[in-house]
């Protein structure tokens, strides 16, 4: 074993020899050995081609077709024109912007505040347990979250009773005005703890000496948070916002199940994924559903690339 190990080390010192199989400059291995990576890749790629790559390509084709009982017709951009003219679909894309902004503001600011507060030295003994409690809602599925908030925010539910006792009357689930905030409330309960865990990992990576140095310079608590914690957290905050925004684009269960009718009163809280479901699987307009899917995909891809560029530019400036 010792000799083989030293042979290996000698081999890896040879120029071009990184220890990987099949590098140029090494003796060519028999076919049986060169096939090994393909054999390892094949189960994944066979299924990946059938159940991901092919459907993605097929969905582009579908979005330019109209399906009826016994024929398939090419219709150019008709499906896109049709869905863009649907009031519910327009509402869904407007809501997407609204959810994107409000979800981020609500979830990330609360999560950031809680993460920073839990990071205080005086709380170090209980912080771990509290973080677990904050995180627990995240193990609950979207369906159950929607059902729970249907009771909590529903007529005669806890929120209704509590607000009525101070003479506030909010019909969360029956008014067009409060439908979207109800979806945001449900999402906030499920996701804030998740962001707290990520932000905490970021906070714990900040060397304690930074805080000590700031304290020596006479910085109070707020100044230490403002000038030490927040700047160090910036990359991880950006990461959290990106993940949260992309997740928000795909909201489905909450608006589907929170209200008596999917999407809420007059579809006030609807989302593109929900409209895609309704069009495709309730009205069986597969081409229209595929078109909504691609409109959403374009939004997501543009957002993802935009946020990447933004992140890079900020690095250049500073």
């Amino acid at each position: 074993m010792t000799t083989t190990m030293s042979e290996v080390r000698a081999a890896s010192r040879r120029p071009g020899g990184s220890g990987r199989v099949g590098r140029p400059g090494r003796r060519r291995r028999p076919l049986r050995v060169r096939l090994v990576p393909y054999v390892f890749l094949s189960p994944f790629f066979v299924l990946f081609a059938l159940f991901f790559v092919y459907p993605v390509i097929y969905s582009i084709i579908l979005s330019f077709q109209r399906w009826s009982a016994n024929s398939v017709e090419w219709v150019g951009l008709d499906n896109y024109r049709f869905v863009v003219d649907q009031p519910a679909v327009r509402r869904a894309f407007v809501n997407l912007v609204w959810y994107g902004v409000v979800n981020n503001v609500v979830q990330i600011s609360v999560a950031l505040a809680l993460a920073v507060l839990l990071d205080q030295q005086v709380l170090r003994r209980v912080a771990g347990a509290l973080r677990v409690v904050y995180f627990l809602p995240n193990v609950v599925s979207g369906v159950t979250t929607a059902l729970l908030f249907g009771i909590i925010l529903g007529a005669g539910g806890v929120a209704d009773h509590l607000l009525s006792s101070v003479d506030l009357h909010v019909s969360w689930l029956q008014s067009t005005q409060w439908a979207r905030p109800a979806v945001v409330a449900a999402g906030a309960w499920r996701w804030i703890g998740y962001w707290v865990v990520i932000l905490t990992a970021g906070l714990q990576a900040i060397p304690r000496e930074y805080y000590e140095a700031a304290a020596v310079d006479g910085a109070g608590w707020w100044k230490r948070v403002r000038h030490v914690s927040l700047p160090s957290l910036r990359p991880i905050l950006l990461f959290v916002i990106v993940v949260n925004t992309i997740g928000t684009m795909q909201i489905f269960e909450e608006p589907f199940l929170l209200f008596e009718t999917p999407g809420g009163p007059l579809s006030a809280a609807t989302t593109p994924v929900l409209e895609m479901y309704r069009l495709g699987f309730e009205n069986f307009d597969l081409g229209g559903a595929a078109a909504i899917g691609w409109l959403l995909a374009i939004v997501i891809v543009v957002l993802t690339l935009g946020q990447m560029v933004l992140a890079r530019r900020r690095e250049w400036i500073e």
Partner: protein
Amino acid sequence: MKAQRVSAVARTGVLVVIVVGAGLLFAAPLWWTFVWSTWHTAEIFSFPPKLIPGPDFGDNYAALQGSVGISRAFLNSVLVTGATLTGALVFCTLAGYAFAKFDFAGRSLLFGLVMATMVVPGQITVVPLFVTMVKLGWIDSYQGLILPGLVPALGVFFMRMSAQQSIPSELLEAARIDGAGELRIFSSIVVPALRPSMAALSILLFAGTWGALFWPVVVLRSTEMFTIPVALASLFGTATQPYDQLMVGSLLSIIPPLAIFFLLQKYFVKSIMLTGFK
């Protein structure tokens, strides 16, 4: 000096009130899921809200069993989640290891393909997958439900990164020189080294599979095939909206992920950081 100490105590007090209050807000709906599963719908909407369990869990469970066959739905969820996780872990680990530790023609092309699809939202595959399943006659079948979930691109990306970080190439070379076969190397070196990453990946995939609604609700038709989320969604869609039954189903759907969380807690942060690659 004394005033300073008093203000420090006051500040700590405010801090504790905020963080514990937040904890109560997060925990309350979970406790209510349990409490509400033990009362009838009328009591669920009573005021002041019920805070302690009542006598009706048996009634509610029997009603839920009668309306959607919840025990069957639970088994379906276990079966589908188990099969999806097992398959996805095996396929992603094999592929990730191959990408990390072998040089072969087409490597960057294939990996680039996997990476590129990570930007595309999975929902756009649902309509064409539905058409495909209709053609194959796989609507309302386990294979139709499970197969599309077996190939998460994220899993390959993550297992490749883990293999690069935690498997020294020298070890693989040494094993080859000693005459070990490739499958043997995979099972006795690669899998043990990647076990923590596999745990993290399975936690992430578990959450997505166990609670999934969109694809299952599209592909499933008959009550005997329903997973828990589909069963609950179908029951909610009925005119009466029996919240007592829905809370029993919700409680049953929370127990397995909660158990996994407490058993595998140390892998959770790792699995959470992994979502960043989605």
